[in-house]
């Protein structure tokens, strides 16, 4: 799966979690860019990505992930 395809799927997850289909995310998007991206929605995002791509994030990734790009890095690594 290419990064573009992963990004598109992740974007759909964002629409679902934030209940906002106008969200256009990029790899640089981080919690400061989306007002509702707090600790609770962070966990919802993590869980939604896990069920979509069928793997579990390590605590290192849950705490350390800085932006969408890093999330895609981890998804790519897990899918490889």
């Amino acid at each position: 799966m290419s990064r573009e395809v992963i990004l598109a799927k992740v974007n759909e997850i964002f629409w679902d979690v934030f209940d906002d289909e106008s969200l256009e995310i990029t790899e640089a998007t981080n919690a400061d860019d989306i007002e509702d991206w707090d600790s609770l929605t962070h966990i919802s995002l993590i869980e939604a990505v896990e069920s979509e791509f069928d793997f579990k994030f390590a605590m290192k990734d849950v705490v350390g992930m800085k932006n969408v790009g890093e999330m895609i890095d981890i998804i790519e690594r897990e899918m490889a």
Partner: protein
Amino acid sequence: MTLVSFSFICFLLIVLLLYYLLPSKWQWVILLFGSTAFYMLAGTPITFIYVIISILSVYLGTHFMEKKPNSKKKIYVFTLLINILMLVALKYTNFILTNITAVGSRFSDNIHEGDWSVKWIASLGISFYALQMIGYLTDCYWGITAPQKNIGKLALYNIYFPQMVSGPINKYSNLSSSLFAEHKFDANNLREGGFRILQGFFKKLVVSEQLTGIVDYLYANYAEYNGIYVWIGTALYLLQLYSDFSGCMDIVLGASKCFGIDLAENFKAPFASTSVQEFWQRFHMSLGAWLKDYIMYPLMRSSAFSKMTKKLKNKYGKKAAKMIPTFAAMFVVWFCMGLWHGGGWNFIGEGIWFWLMIVLGQLLEKPLKSLGKNLHINGESKFMHSLKCVGTSFLIGIGILFFKAVSLRAAFTMIGSAFNLSRLIASVGTVGESLSLLDSSIGTNRIVWAAISVAIGLAVMILFGLKDKAEERFHVYISKKNFWIRLLVGYLLIMSIIFLGAYGPGYSASEFIYGGF
């Protein structure tokens, strides 16, 4: 030596002189010696032993976790327990003993509440450095951070003197590179740091210290000063707490900036918040971030929580399966938040109050929005925004009332009288008489002086606050101005600190509220 004292400024200048005059590769060593000296001057020297135990245990723990990957979890749990037990023993033993004797007194006539107590002295800043060490240890366990091989550098991370007494709680991965780096002399760092320190002295001495006597008096004599006085005392305490703690942070971050080291921000215009949840994302931010990373996330990702979610999903559906575990994890977080502030049921009461407000905020968010729509109220209008900010401050006020009250029972009595209409009306009539009584109890004409200082202080703090919100903080903004403007602002700040400030005995302000934790 407290942070707001002439001796601290002299101490800072000496360390700064050595820091920039000696070869830069020794800068971190100078900070380590400076921090040890600070501990000896500001704390009880013998308690340094607890700090050493913490550093040694974490150093060895992270070292062995790397050497013996098969036993990583056991070593992590063991090291974690040493540090948690030390924190609990030094901070909470008397709270535990009081509760045991309180329960015991119900079953035996020989035991009375408060019979047992210990006189252990906790090490300086234990509530802050213990959290930093637990965070660092956990980061090493998760693999976020590589263990620091140099025990001296790890010790500096633990006891770095500007932040040791009152935080902010810094993540090792954010602070280490700057803390151990070589910094060239930069006049701009000194300018920004200097202005920030002045700003901190201003908030602390012109506002916080002026209010201390009045607030303490009203809270200590809550039985007499009820009704309207609870509202007055709590509004003043909210202002005092913010000016005290954010002023303290200005001094801490300003002092660190002089060394070229940026620490985590702890405040971002908290009174601009439109909900309790947002307030805690802007107030004592580094504690919130710590609780999120090391309590909230691990709890929500634990197998117990996964099981709970699955069960709830089968029984009550998707929505409940998401909400109930989240609220349960938040309860643990807020309980810990309350307990962190001190061993007392009033502190726990404060934590639970904020938890309740955040949960209610989340549950009522959608119904309130649709109600507003039906009533044709524009929730985004300036007026509604201001109303939400005032409402949030009101809810925060009730929370900190628990925090300041002498006991949980006192807090409930105060809240009861504040909402009792007949008490409220009766107390309003006595305000004039009480003010003159109060004035004579805390010093002649103190109230008038305090009122003038606080009014001026508040106006200036609103100015600081507006800049805080606008991303470029006041000290950065002023540092960029030309020499004459900088001179004028510096002069005005120093003069107002001298003439409007309240000074305790010996011309050293009483300790910061948060230094006590």
